[in-house]
């Protein structure tokens, strides 16, 4: 195995002073310097353009057209209707607008629940495994498994466990502990929402654990020790020293998990199929249904643009509030 010296923050940052030319010391290939980096990033730029940038622009255009299955074969000629799709989407009295409003609220509730639970579980795991404990390596490997298992496989497993008559969940709740008298259906009706939350948290918390552990390992232990000498409790030390020290990473972790959860598609799709029960319809599923089940692609696109603007606003606000200046480029 190859090992190499890992540098400290300060070293890396010192080398990245703006304006510093990091090419050969004698400037022998100073002319090449101008085009080589551009050639190196070209493939990435082209790929991003084709798969992301052009589709996003096209998506904004689509949102202003009446693109339905009538025009799907010949979509470049779909009639332009400007902001009508947005008007439908934002009209709280209309069927589409009220469904969209409900779905946004439901998606927000889902996001807050999943992020909060995943963060708490991940933090607990990271905190106890950042101490000297026997078998830490084994636990760390084990806890990564839910994240490593492909989404579709773990969700299929959960859909088996949640099945009413053959599932492990009802077996435990009803047969073994007798907490419930009747076997509930978990995958239809209002219970579907909670089933979806459980599966999403089970998949996501190892990510929080991984990132928070990496962050905790960067906090010097002397700080904690000094606080302990001063008589601070573990909880005090955690709140006043550990949390502030890992704040930048923490903010990024929460933001990433929030964006993932808000855009969650795979978990409900594998759990319920293309038409989930209403209680488990998240935004992504609603837009998918409009676009590919009803073929109202113009309307779907308008919803997408609204979601993007919302996420952009929330993310910028979040970064401004929680990420200190100077670290934002990281």
């Amino acid at each position, binding site marked *: 195995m*190859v090992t*190499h010296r*890992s*540098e400290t923050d300060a070293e*890396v940052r010192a080398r990245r002073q703006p*304006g*510093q030319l990091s*090419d050969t010391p004698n400037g022998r290939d100073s002319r090449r*310097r*101008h085009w080589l*980096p551009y050639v*190196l990033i070209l*493939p*990435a730029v082209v*790929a991003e353009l084709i*798969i*992301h*940038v052009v*589709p*996003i622009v*096209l998506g904004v255009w689509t949102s202003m057209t009446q693109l339905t299955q009538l025009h799907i074969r010949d979509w470049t000629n779909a009639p332009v209707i400007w902001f009508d799709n947005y008007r439908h989407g934002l009209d709280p009295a209309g069927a589409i607008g009220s469904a969209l409003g409900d779905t946004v609220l439901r998606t927000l509730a889902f996001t807050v629940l999943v992020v909060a639970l995943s963060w708490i579980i991940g933090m*607990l*795991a990271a905190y*106890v495994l950042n101490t000297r404990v026997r078998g830490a390596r084994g*636990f760390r490997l084990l*806890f*990564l*498994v839910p*994240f490593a*298992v*492909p*989404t*579709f*496989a*773990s969700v299929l*497993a*959960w*859909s*088996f466990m949640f099945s009413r*008559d*053959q599932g*492990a969940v009802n*077996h435990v709740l009803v047969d073994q502990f007798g907490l419930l008298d009747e076997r509930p259906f978990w995958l239809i009706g209002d219970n579907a929402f909670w089933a979806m939350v459980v599966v999403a948290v*089970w998949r996501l918390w190892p990510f929080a654990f*991984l990132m928070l*552990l990496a*962050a905790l390992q960067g906090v010097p*232990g002397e700080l904690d020790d000094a606080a*302990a000498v001063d008589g601070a409790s573990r909880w005090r030390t955690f709140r006043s020293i550990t949390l502030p020290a890992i704040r930048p990473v923490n903010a990024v972790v929460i933001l990433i998990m929030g*964006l993932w959860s808000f*855009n969650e*598609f795979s978990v409900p*799709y*594998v759990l319920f199929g293309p038409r989930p029960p209403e209680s488990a319809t998240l935004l992504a599923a609603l837009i998918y249904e409009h*676009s590919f089940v009803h073929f109202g*692609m113009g309307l779907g696109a308008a919803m*997408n643009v609204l*979601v*993007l603007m919302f996420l952009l606003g929330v*993310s910028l606000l979040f970064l401004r509030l929680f990420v200190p200046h100077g670290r934002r480029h990281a």
Partner: protein
Amino acid sequence: MREGPGFRWFRRGVLTFLTLITVVPLYVVVSSSVKPLADVQGRFSWIPREVTLSPYVDTWTTVPLARYLVNSLIVAAVSASLALLVAVAAAYALSRFTFRGDRAFRLAVLSTQMVPGMLFLVPLFLIFSQVHTWLGIRVIGTHAGLIVTFMTFSLPFAIWMLTGLFAGIPREVEEAALLDGLGRIGVLLRIVLPLARPALAAVGIFAFVIAWGEVLFASVLSDADTRTLAVGLRAYITQSTVLWNELMAASVIASVPVVVGFLMLHRHLMRGLGAGLR
């Protein structure tokens, strides 16, 4: 920090709880995959009454598992290799040169990660179908369409992580080699890449895992012939009677390669995360 008995009990409790919530679902899958059909059709039982490997044999004919598996392998392997190539080049440029637009590029790459996949799914579908109309090249329902798309999904993380790792490779060696007349590309190929080999493996596995598990785009951009595991197995549970033992066996078969790869390389992935976070 001193560890009192209270804390040790707390730690024991937390670790027990976490181990349970992690292991129980995995146990359910594995134990159900070795039960005879009668055992998974009635009430759930923790201990299999009888252990049989027949689900692992029969699942190949119940579901077109081999076809899905091959499709997933092709799509994931090719898109991961491409992502690695593209990301190595971009990350080397970012870690070794200061050039006009480097920050903009870095930011643009990261921000594409923020855009919900749903937003470019429909347009991408439209573009791909238009390519067929205009150029006569079929993209939807082919491996190529999935490969190009999945490649871009792992690019942001791959570039970000590799930039951090390349920055951690001491430059003195490289500069000596440059003086010795090895060109920039030579230095990248013969000095930087060999040093970064474990990291490259980690990023490659990461990209592979992303493509292997992707559901949304695979559900729209693949057809019956190119369907990957992620979409194919899902379609199976819509049938009226589900052979759960065989489906669990198929899930195990679909998971083992990526889980093993992921766990083998997780240390390098961790180090990459650490480097990227700085």
